[in-house]
């Protein structure tokens, strides 16, 4: 049974709701649909789940109307899609921009609903046997989807072979590292070297770190204190944005598209030119396909993950289908414009990413602001942690580092060197300690000595490594950090999707208390190594919904900057 069916404009005014189904909806499913699905460029999806409801929608792009149907999730109503398209057709006939109330539509809707239900019944009887297997698959999907909001949005309709192959590959790597990791934690006491003789010569310990006494004042000749002489961090420098001529890009695009697609001229050259001048044609799927395909390939050459590019193109298609072409515009330029809008919308953060504000707020509450850096191996967590510490220090914020990477050899020494150069305190407990406990003690220490920010460094871990992900979850649950920053490198390709979705999934699965902490922000590293293949930023933001807070673009302390949305969009679509 349908719970509700709404018709509203893209500007937000509700034009018509079904008065028969007068039940008030629990919560605000429509607003959530708009905020987490339609504005996130996921309008190409089939449906959206919100608590106990499932929502389906369709657009009438020409008139700027949205039709949404809400029904109980446990019911698998088959006639909803049919009903929506019928409602769309009949409503667009009576729609008038000046009219605000459409009470006469009630009768029409009642008839349409009965018709659709009847049709659904007959079809359902025929398809019952075939659909049984589909339904069980569908139920499994929805069962998984109950777990996590972001991950269910990310689940593909049909997981392709590529996805499974990729999982298998990372599984084998994960197994190896998990075996090694499994060997480490059970050892509580370190092994002592067995001494056979009484007067055995003592072996010189192999240790190349600088000699350090208790105060941490090492050999100052080798270590120069970074302090303020490295100059301003690039975070504070405004980027000069040059608005290039766009016409040259369009000409290049035209040439390429002309070369590649001589077979797409189904309508004939003259009629398409005529239509582009008068602008009367309604955009159909067949018209949009070649332009969208070219756009998708272009995005993929810029290192955007394949499934993300696919979903984006579907979303743009859904928003353009049926729209009237403006006069004197080509289809490709309309599609390009829509894609540009969509990309800017995705990359613009959903909430404010002002860390300074949050730090001040935490300072007022007399507690330190805790940031945890997570990510897979080798992306640059420790390096970028030092860069963030430098930037914060430049803004007169007192920082403390916590060395919770108790696994990798040299991790603690690395952080110790950074701390010495930047002259900030570091809390460390050596190796083979429980990172969650070390973090907790670090936060207590910070509260005691009045540090404003605690930067927690964790060990790199593969997303498929179950015990390590559990350990990370425990760290986050125990310490309740203010910001969970996922560090990802810009060189990553399709794996970005897998990394982020698995991290989010594990964090939400293994959280014990009511509030699940997911990834709050992304730190994109090694940005200087990619020239214009900036697609990894888009994949990561799309899949997790978290904004990019910092971009690391080099190996010195000042190489940290903000993400310039317009420049990235321009590079992606060039």
């Amino acid at each position, binding site marked *: 049974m349908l719970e509700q069916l709404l018709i509203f404009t*893209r500007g937000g*005014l509700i034009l018509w709701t079904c008065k028969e189904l007068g039940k008030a909806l629990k919560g605000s499913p429509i607003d959530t649909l*708009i905020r987490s699905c339609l504005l996130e460029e996921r309008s190409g999806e089939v449906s959206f789940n919100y608590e106990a409801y499932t929502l389906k929608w369709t657009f009438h792009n020409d008139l700027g109307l949205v039709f949404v149907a809400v029904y109980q999730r446990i019911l698998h109503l088959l006639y909803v899609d049919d009903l929506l398209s019928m409602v769309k057709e009949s409503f667009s006939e009576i729609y008038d921009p000046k009219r*605000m109330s459409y009470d006469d539509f009630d009768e029409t809707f009642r008839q349409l609903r009965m018709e659709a239900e009847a049709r659904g019944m007959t079809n359902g009887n025929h398809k019952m046997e075939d659909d049984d297997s589909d339904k069980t698959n569908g139920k499994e999907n929805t069962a998984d989807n109950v777990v996590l909001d972001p991950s269910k949005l990310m689940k593909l309709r049909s997981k392709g072979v590529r996805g499974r192959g990729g999982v298998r590959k990372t599984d084998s790597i994960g197994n190896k590292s998990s075996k090694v990791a499994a060997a480490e934690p059970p050892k509580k006491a370190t092994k002592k070297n067995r001494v056979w003789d009484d007067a055995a010569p003592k072996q010189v310990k192999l240790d190349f770190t600088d000699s350090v006494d208790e105060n941490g004042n090492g050999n100052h000749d080798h270590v120069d204190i970074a302090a303020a002489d490295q100059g301003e961090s690039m975070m504070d420098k405004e980027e000069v944005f040059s608005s290039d001529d766009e016409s040259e890009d369009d000409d290049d695009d035209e040439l390429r598209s002309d070369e590649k697609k001589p077979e797409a001229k189904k309508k004939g050259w003259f009629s398409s030119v005529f239509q582009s001048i008068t602008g009367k044609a309604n955009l159909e799927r067949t018209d949009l396909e070649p332009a969208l395909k070219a756009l998708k390939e272009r995005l993929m050459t810029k290192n955007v993950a394949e499934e993300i590019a696919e979903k984006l193109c579907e979303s743009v298609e859904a928003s353009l289908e049926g729209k009237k072409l403006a006069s004197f515009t080509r289809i490709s330029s309309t599609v390009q414009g829509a894609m540009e809008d969509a990309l800017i919308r995705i990359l*613009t*953060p959903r909430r404010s990413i002002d860390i300074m504000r949050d730090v001040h707020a935490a300072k007022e509450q007399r507690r330190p602001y805790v940031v945890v850096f997570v990510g897979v191996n080798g992306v640059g967590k420790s390096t970028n942690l030092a860069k963030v510490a430098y930037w914060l220090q430049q803004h007169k914020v007192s920082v403390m580092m916590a060395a919770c990477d108790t696994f990798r050899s040299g991790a603690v020494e690395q952080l110790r060197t950074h701390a010495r150069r930047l002259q900030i305190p570091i809390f460390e407990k050596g190796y083979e300690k429980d990172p969650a406990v070390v973090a907790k003690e670090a936060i207590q220490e910070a509260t005691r000595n009045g540090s404003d920010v605690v930067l927690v460094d964790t060990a790199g871990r593969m997303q498929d490594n179950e015990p390590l992900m559990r350990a990370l979850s425990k760290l986050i649950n125990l310490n309740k950090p203010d910001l969970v920053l996922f560090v990802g490198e810009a060189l990553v390709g399709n794996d970005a999707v897998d990394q982020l979705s698995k991290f989010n999934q594990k964090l939400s699965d293994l959280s014990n208390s009511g509030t699940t902490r997911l990834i709050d922000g992304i730190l994109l590293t090694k940005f200087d190594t990619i020239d214009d293949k900036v697609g990894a930023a888009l994949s990561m933001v799309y899949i997790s919904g978290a904004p990019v807070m910092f971009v690391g673009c080099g190996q010195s302390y000042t190489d940290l900057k903000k993400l310039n*949305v317009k420049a990235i969009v321009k590079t992606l679509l060039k």
Partner: protein
Amino acid sequence: MENLEDLKLMVEQWTNQGPEYLQKIPPFQLYAAIGLLLLTTVLLLSFRLVRRTKSNTVLLSGLSGSGKTVLFYQLRDGSSHQGSVTSMEPNEGTFVFHSEHAKKGKIKPVHLVDAPGHSRLRPKLEEFLPQAAAIVFVVDALEFLPNCRAASEYLYDILTNANVVKKKIPVLLCCNKTDKLTAHTKEFIKKQMEKEMQYEKLRASRSAVSTADIANDYTIGIEGEVFSFSHCCNRVTVAEASGLNGETVQVQDFIREYIKP
């Protein structure tokens, strides 16, 4: 090639004949023609200058959920119809207020723009700022404290925008949903906003992502003093309204103050 030479000859003939022809015209007519040309260009330029200052665009901005769309339809039609959802696109309209329909005579219509408040659609607001004659910043008086920080950040962004500072666009801080019992008063909201703006001012760097190409170099307020709205060079006033009940008198008065009927 022959055609080209013919053309060249013709052009040469014309150029030779030109000065002779000009000399034949009595000088008075020549001066009159030139004078008329100059006059029309001067008039056109002055029209453009004059029209720029008399724009009649009013911008409705504020966080998502503060009641802008409802307010828009109240001002236009006198009723909020069947309610609203989160806007995905701006609502624009040029009209005379619903309450002013009864008045006789020619009243200048207002071009009202309701910009979406969702943070992802923030760039849409910046498109309309250059043409705005006044800005109404709508704040939810009911759910004020949880959203106080976001609202003050948004307001700070608007007040430090280059267009707003240069043209001294007046801003009205409109506290919406005052019909509800637990809504805060406008004095409370004003004080809270000033306090939050103080924090915004204190920070040296703002890490807002999408302003990389808009020069937000302006800071507002006086150094060393607690921020107050009177420090802004443009006028900032506070008013109350209720979108659902149709109490939009204060907003209408503010708009009519700057767009004379």
